[in-house]
């Protein structure tokens, strides 16, 4: 696959496709940097620690049924775990278009956030319970 412009990513939250409201999207894998440097080492020795993955998205706000707030608020208020899925292009998983998914919980959500005169958007972080999985089929 060649270099491409990100114009058709897909983003599902709890089974709801919110792609056409997504202005920015990121799948962030992260792990603690555990220092295991022993005496006499010439440089730091490191091993991968506990993962702390997350998805982040900027949505255009929409309070209609089946849209952004109607999907996110119940999950935030209910404190439930829900599935988040992301693709770079469409929803067909392949070696060149892997699906990244994780079970998430919303710990912060701001349904109204923005400056007067701007298109209403909200930045949302989806912390992963466990780790993000990568699938190519």
């Amino acid at each position, binding site marked *: 696959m060649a270099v491409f412009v990100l114009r058709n990513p897909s983003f599902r939250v709890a089974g709801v496709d919110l*792609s*056409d409201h997504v202005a920015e999207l990121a799948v962030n894998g992260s792990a603690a940097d555990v220092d295991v440097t022993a005496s006499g080492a010439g440089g730091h020795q490191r091993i991968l620690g506990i993962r702390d993955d997350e998805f982040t998205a900027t949505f*255009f706000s929409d309070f209609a049924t089946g849209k952004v707030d109607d999907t996110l608020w119940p999950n935030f208020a209910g404190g439930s775990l829900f599935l988040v899925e992301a693709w770079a292009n469409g929803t067909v998983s392949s070696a060149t278009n892997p699906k990244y998914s994780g079970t998430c919980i919303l710990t912060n959500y701001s349904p109204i956030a923005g400056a007067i005169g701007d*298109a209403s958007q909200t930045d949302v972080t989806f912390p992963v319970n466990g780790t993000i999985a990568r699938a190519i089929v």
Partner: protein
Amino acid sequence: MASVKLIREGIAANLESLKGCQVSAYMLENPTPPTVWVFPGDEDYDLAARRGTDKLTFMVQAIAGIVTDQGAQQLLDEFMDDGGAKSIKAAVESDTTLGGAADDLHVTERSGYQQVTLEGRGRFVFAEWTVEVYAAGTA
């Protein structure tokens, strides 16, 4: 679908509440001021994924009359008011979905007085307004 035609015609329809004015969704060769018309400006594509949202800019120009005519200037002042029966901003924002042609719109800016010479007719005073329109693109 972000239709330039439907959006400019929708803005013009909102402006029909300005009584006593010639309102057109298109620029005219021989306007009979006071004239208010609409034309498209820049467009930002792909603000959201999957052609979810485009931002289109439209311009509204209001030519009030001969520049030396005090009545024309008073009318242009009324056009410039942010509210009232002759307010361009209030008229354009009276239906922010333009009957379904847009998701939302916002009159964000207005110019000051400007002058234009209509051939053989003299100098006319006008102002223009910037309208930002959000609409879904064509997937």
